[in-house]
């Protein structure tokens, strides 16, 4: 199996006034292609710092991070931007869709920053990505005309459109109710299992971790647990098991 992520002794320190805060104290693990890994940890565990590093938004103080074989430590700000554009698809907790912009245009956005893609190809690929998240009938809806789950699916389509090597989700179900969460998780599982997408999902909900194939737990800037999940739950089945009408 091809290694998508390789982390060797990643350390990240911040200067806060006169104090040095050590957010990551030597994190090492590898992620292979097609894995669905959740990164868990309570607040202050270094989860967010690790996420920023994995997303090539932040460089580690020391250690080596290879993303799809590229050492990001040697790259400039602009090269990092290009790397994010080509290799990473972000999904955020708050969706981060552009307001008053149609779903289609939101999904097209990453392709605007890729010089190799022509306007017609851009549109075709955005429509494909929206089809993949089953929103082909919502192409021209504005975010405020979509439900939370639909908005997150637009965001997932936006993450897919550049055909990244990894989808990096940050608490992607944090704003959703449990039914919609299961819908989103079932979509993500589908992407992982059918399309063999590598998924890194940062969360603090153990419930969500149960859907993944591997869980890495962080505590105080170190990996304290790295386990493969033997009996993955299927979000689709969970969804089917939920009562159809909720009685209040």
């Amino acid at each position, binding site marked *: 199996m091809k290694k998508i992520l390789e982390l060797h002794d990643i350390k990240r320190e911040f200067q806060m006034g006169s104090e040095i805060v050590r957010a990551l104290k030597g994190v090492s693990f590898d992620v292979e292609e097609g894995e669905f890994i959740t990164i868990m940890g309570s607040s202050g565990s270094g989860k967010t710092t690790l996420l920023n590093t994995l997303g090539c938004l932040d460089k580690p103080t020391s250690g080596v991070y290879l993303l799809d074989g590229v050492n990001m430590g040697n790259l400039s700000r602009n090269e990092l931007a*290009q790397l994010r554009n080509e290799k990473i698809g972000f999904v955020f907790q708050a969706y981060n869709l*552009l307001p*008053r912009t149609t779903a289609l245009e939101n999904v097209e956005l990453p392709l605007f920053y890729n010089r190799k893609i022509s306007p017609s190809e851009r549109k075709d690929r955005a429509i494909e990505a929206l089809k993949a998240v089953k929103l082909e009938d919502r192409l021209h809806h504005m975010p405020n005309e979509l439900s939370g789950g639909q908005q997150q699916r637009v965001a997932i389509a936006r993450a897919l459109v550049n055909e990244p090597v990894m989808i990096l989700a940050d608490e992607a179900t944090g704003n959703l109710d449990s039914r919609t969460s299961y819908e989103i998780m079932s979509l993500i599982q589908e992407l992982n299992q059918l399309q063999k997408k590598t998924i890194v999902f940062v969360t603090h909900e153990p419930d969500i971790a149960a859907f993944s194939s591997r869980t890495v737990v962080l505590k105080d800037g170190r990996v304290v647990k790295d386990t493969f999940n033997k009996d993955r739950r299927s979000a689709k089945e969970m969804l089917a098991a939920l009562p159809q009408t909720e009685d209040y």
Partner: protein
Amino acid sequence: MSILNLIRLALRALQRNKLRAVLTMLGIIIGVAAVITIGAIGQGSKISIHSSLAGLGSNLIIIMPNSNAPGGARLLGSNVETLTIRDILAIEKEATMINGVSPDVQSRGQVINGSLNWPTTIEGANEQLLSIKNLSVTKGIPFSDHDVKTYAKVCIIGQTVVDNVFPKGVSPIGKTIRFNKIPFQIIGILAKKGQNTFGQDQDDIIIAPFTTVQKRITASIYFGTIFASAKSEALSVPASDELTKILRVSHHLRSDIDNDFMIRTQAELIKTLGAVTGLLTALLTAIAGISLVIGGIGIMNIMYVSVTERTKEIGLRMSIGARGIDILSQFLTEAIIVSVVGGVIGILLGEGLAFLISHALKWPPVVDETSIIVSFSVCFAIGVFFGYYPALKASKLDPIEALRYE
């Protein structure tokens, strides 16, 4: 990112906040419209003054008597009598740079036709005056050299005189009117000229041979003025130098004695008035220019607000692969589009206003390409200049912090 993509992104961003974009443009619109309108008014008034003075003959040279007495009582120019027929003969014989020369004697008086009368001015001149002053006769004929030599009691009259002393529908040609009791036969009517720049009615006039006017009305051998016409506008200054020499000889002035006449050219007057209107136009344009700068500051202000407001969007764009330069060019393009679109609307509005004003004041409409090109480039420059700092601020944001901005 390609320019086309940049423009598309900028237009989408502006569409999301149409009202704000329009309000931001308003400053630029007003500034540009003001610059264009004032420029056009200045240009139009300049042309209008020039054409109304040129209507008198832009090659016109005016010679007036002047006092050269070094001491004693200084006399008013118009009370001095130095210009005579000798000067005319000398000029006709020696001057090389003029097309024509005519004496001019004027007298105020009452013109009477039957029961109608009207106060007007009679102007005595020779047959060359009409061409010197750009006048023409619409009905009848002008008087001739022969009429001048024979002291003929003939005249040509202006339209105002016709309107006041002849009932409607009666042709004045061949009729006799009396000016201060002296009968004159009307042989021609002057083409209507309207008011000159100074509001004087140029049609309220009777023109007759100067010999007749001198003998019958002014009873003087002196002329109030001599009019000459240079061969071209450019020649009017050398021609007036030449006339000065001829007149000094004709007046037997020793080299240490001042001129007993003065020479003015129409070209000088046009230049002076042109300089005055030019100065006023420049002043007003500068004030309008200030409003354009204020419009630019408005753009800068709104762009700063916009960058702050869209911090999260900037963070998102950066996280999905926008480089600093992409963000910079996006915001810069927005600023340029706002100012250039505002500029185009301002140009149209300004030209429209200029057209209305020139129409109302009956000036020739002035569509000045350079002012359009200049305002367009100025708007572009304003967009770049005032858009740059907010755009730079946006491009320098840290994606992590920008994403987390609420």
